[in-house]
């Protein structure tokens, strides 16, 4: 049936600002930036990991009426659009220090949990994301793959 997830989307309020944040600050790679006429198709991905892109999407016309677009912008800036993106790093402390030096807005500091070490941050628009260094079990698999204990 399905083989993988290749694309998901994050609502952003300004494409140039979004590219600046996701590429220059967060360190992702610009995987496409095309003017399709009716829209500008912009995607980012993890450098060296092709085939898994995140679309940076502007809410509003023509895909969405003006009022709905405003409602989405309202929710994004309130931080009410839920979890936007989870990234895995091989060194959470180092990534945290790099992003801190770049002035990123953190929602939570570096913390260690059963599933690994992670921290949370927001993009300039209000989207919530988390960066995790996964703890591994004796079998070499991420501990989070063991499922939720009941």
């Amino acid at each position, binding site marked *: 049936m399905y083989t993988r997830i290749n694309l998901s989307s994050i609502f952003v309020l300004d494409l140039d600002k979004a590219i600046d944040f996701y590429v220059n600050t967060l360190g992702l790679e610009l995987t496409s930036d095309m003017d399709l006429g009716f829209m500008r198709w912009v995607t980012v991905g993890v450098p060296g990991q092709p085939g898994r892109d995140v679309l940076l999407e502007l809410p509003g016309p023509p895909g969405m009426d003006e009022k709905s677009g405003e409602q989405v912008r309202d929710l994004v800036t*309130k931080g009410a659009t839920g979890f936007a993106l989870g990234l895995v790093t091989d060194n959470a402390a180092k990534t945290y220090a790099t992003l801190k030096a770049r002035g990123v807005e953190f*929602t939570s500091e570096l913390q260690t949990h059963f599933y690994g070490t992670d921290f949370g941050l927001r993009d300039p628009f209000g989207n919530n994301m*988390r960066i995790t260094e996964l703890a591994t079990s004796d079998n070499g698999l991420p501990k989070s793959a063991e499922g939720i204990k009941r």
Partner: protein
Amino acid sequence: MNQILSIRVVGFFTVAGGCALRNIAWVTRAVEELNRRMLRARDAIDRAYSQPLDIANLAAVASVSEAHFIRTFKATFGETPHRYLQRRRVERAMFMLRETEKSVTDICLDSGFTSLGTFSRTFHDIIGMSPTDYRSRQEVIALPTCFVMQWTRPSSFGEAKRAVRT
């Protein structure tokens, strides 16, 4: 000790406030700019819940006057900053009661309450039972922290019994 904590808090807020001003220029619509500022203050509550937060500091994070801050925060998120902070503190206390062996007194202080009386009363008002009773009923919830923070937060004063797993 309190003085040292206060200085640290003020330092943090000054830095956060500076970032806020720099990032605001691109937000063209006033309501979105205000939302974003309020979210910045709400994030500060989530991060610094264990420290003595006051309205002056939080208003500075949001880059608005104190008079506007409480009203605008409530209009944005549906509750006052004080109530949001109390729910955050109780959520952290619930977490520590479930997943640590710390004493109730230590949990009270670690979650940002300064008196055991206020802690017990607030906890009971929101959850409908004492911290000790809550602890005796819980299982471990193993999920990434941000989801624990969002989904185990007591819903409100009064309606909160719905949020308690029994």
